[in-house]
């Protein structure tokens, strides 16, 4: 299989193309004419200050917000994404910063929320869902034990594995991770990093939003930097240093002679 870089060099059609996306809230342009793309097996980091518009941009793709103007293409086809259900039908899964779990439900109920397994009579099949949940957790987080307790009783890392399991279980092709390690300790962060490598190897494209420049340098193939709602630039990680990225984030300046 060709690497993401080779695919780009061949001019292959990206899995996701977001072109000239704009969205404003009450006169403030949160995202202004931003274009990003993503190839299979590629991890694209989205960097920027708080309020730079990264999360807003990505929520357009996940269906939580509707763009004012712009175009989204999935595998070259123009698509309309007006709600989270549309995004899911294009195999786009999102792991939110806020973890988007219902605290009062158990892991299996959260894993299948909105897509429950039902019996032939149309009732939810809790036993089947718990069995599936145990299977996927066996792969993702073998230490996970608390299947019958509400997720409010879980640690940050355990909650994160439920959120990740949700994205992985439903065969995401395009995965959006909004600061997936923000609430995690070092060991759990490492677990997420390994998982990203695994998913990448399976040809899943990942948008990774992160504050941590080092994490982005380690995990991503490319990075798109945003500032004040606009795209500063997209760079190949191999061509830049930590300091280059920092100056893009802070000063909004592209490093000399680098373009991706």
């Amino acid at each position, binding site marked *: 299989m060709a690497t993401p870089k080779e695919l780009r060099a061949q001019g292959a059609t990206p899995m996701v193309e977001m072109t000239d996306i704009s969205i404003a809230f009450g006169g403030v342009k949160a995202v202004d004419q931003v274009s990003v793309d993503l190839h299979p097996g590629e991890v694209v980091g989205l960097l920027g200050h708080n309020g730079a518009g990264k999360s807003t941009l990505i929520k357009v793709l*996940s269906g*939580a917000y509707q763009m004012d103007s712009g175009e989204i293409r999935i595998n070259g086809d123009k698509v309309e994404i007006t*709600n*989270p*259900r549309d995004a*899911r039908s294009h195999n786009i899964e*999102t792991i*939110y910063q*806020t*973890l*988007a*779990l*219902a*605290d*009062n*439900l158990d892991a299996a*109920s*959260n894993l299948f*929320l*909105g*897509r*429950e397994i*039902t019996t032939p009579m*149309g*009732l*939810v099949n809790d*036993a*089947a869902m*718990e*069995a599936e949940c*145990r*299977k996927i*957790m*066996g*792969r993702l987080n*073998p230490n*996970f*034990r608390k*299947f019958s*307790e*509400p997720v*409010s*009783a879980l640690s940050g890392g355990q909650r994160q594995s439920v959120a990740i399991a949700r994205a992985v279980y439903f065969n995401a092709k395009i995965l959006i991770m909004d600061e997936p390690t923000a609430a995690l300790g070092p060991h759990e962060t490492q677990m997420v990093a390994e998982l990203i490598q*695994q998913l990448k190897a*399976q040809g899943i494209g990942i948008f990774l939003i992160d504050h941590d420049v080092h994490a982005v340098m380690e995990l991503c193939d490319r990075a798109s930097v945003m500032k004040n709602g606009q795209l500063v630039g997209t760079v190949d990680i191999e061509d830049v240093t930590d300091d280059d990225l920092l100056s893009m984030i802070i000063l909004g300046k592209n490093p000399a002679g680098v373009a991706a």
Partner: protein
Amino acid sequence: MTETTSQPIPEQQKRGLFQQLELDMRLLGMIGAFVILCIGFNILTDGRFLTPRNIFNLTIQTVSVAIMATGMVFVIVTRHIDLSVGALLATCSAVMAMTQTQFLPNVLGLGLDHPLTWALTMVIGLATGTLIGAFHGWMVGYLTIPAFIVTLGGLLVWRNAAWYMTDGQTIGPLDKTFMMFGGTNGTMGTTWSWIIGVVAAVLAIAVIVNGRRAKLAHDFPVKPAWAEAVICAITSGSILGFVWILNSYNIPTRRLQRMFEAKGETMPEGLEMGYGLPISVLILIAVAVVMTIVAQRTRLGRYIFATGGNPDAAELSGINTRMLTVKIFALMGFLCALSAVVASARLANHSNDIGTLDELRVIAAAVIGGTALSGGIGTIYGAILGALIMQSLQSGMAMVGVDAPFQNIVVGTVLVAAVWIDIVYRKRLGAK
């Protein structure tokens, strides 16, 4: 990523008796409180509280509030409130009273006691309740007006809409078949009650056995067989015990005589007949079963609890929370109409003050039953038990002879204390 090893299921450890039974401790606590209450009143009233007659009356008095309390659980679980249920009950009751006494006789020419009258009346009444409820839900979900405001407005609107429709008059008498849904006027008799009781007990055992099979099919831990057997015995025992109590309340001789006279027969000397299960109680049981299934076994119920636990998560999971709000309030409206049938049939007429302050009784029943106003937590059986506790308190105090003002003071105090105990209990258990 290709291995499919499942999570190992931990070995069952030896545990205490109660833990092996895996009973809901909150439920046990409530039943305990209820039993203490009943025994206390029974002592204070020299044994008049726990007679078949009083238990019969208690159950039929509880039905109307209990039916609405099951719907209020869903409303409160999704972090809303419905202050209009008593007023909505009055409007539905007024609509049904006018339908059977004015509309059907004058427009369609169907008189009272025509076989179609009660059925048409109920269809119109239930549709009215459902539509008004859906309208409330639309204002809450789509216009994003807080439920507190929508239903506070609804309280004033529907209370007075009922008044306007009936000119404030008491409307009666009502259709004979319709009045059978009220309680005393419609009971199954002893034989049918026993049949229903046995069928219910068998069904309950079948449900327990089925649940165990589903767990075993996936190799999940199950309770020891003896524990399941104990629970089966308790469940079927309670069902049959309840039927036995209601069957042992005999229809008063004078009343029985009149019933025979109405049919043009003479009553055999020394005949005794028990009331058995009232139809209104059967309706409540049916509502409880259906609502429990909705809460625990349907997507709708799952989404209601998910939305209550984290509205944003529900929305991001692709749940249409606005439509969900409409459905919840429509269901609440339907149940208000059903309660209106029971309440007006029990009174044998529609009176202008029907359902007054029911909104507070219904909310109190749901809350005493463990529904958390912060959302996401609540059970149907809890709400029904809450309604039963409230009603027992009220009628027990009336029997003991507590002054009217003190009755309400006690009920109010109990409400606050019950919620406080619940908060303490949840904290001990680690914020579940």
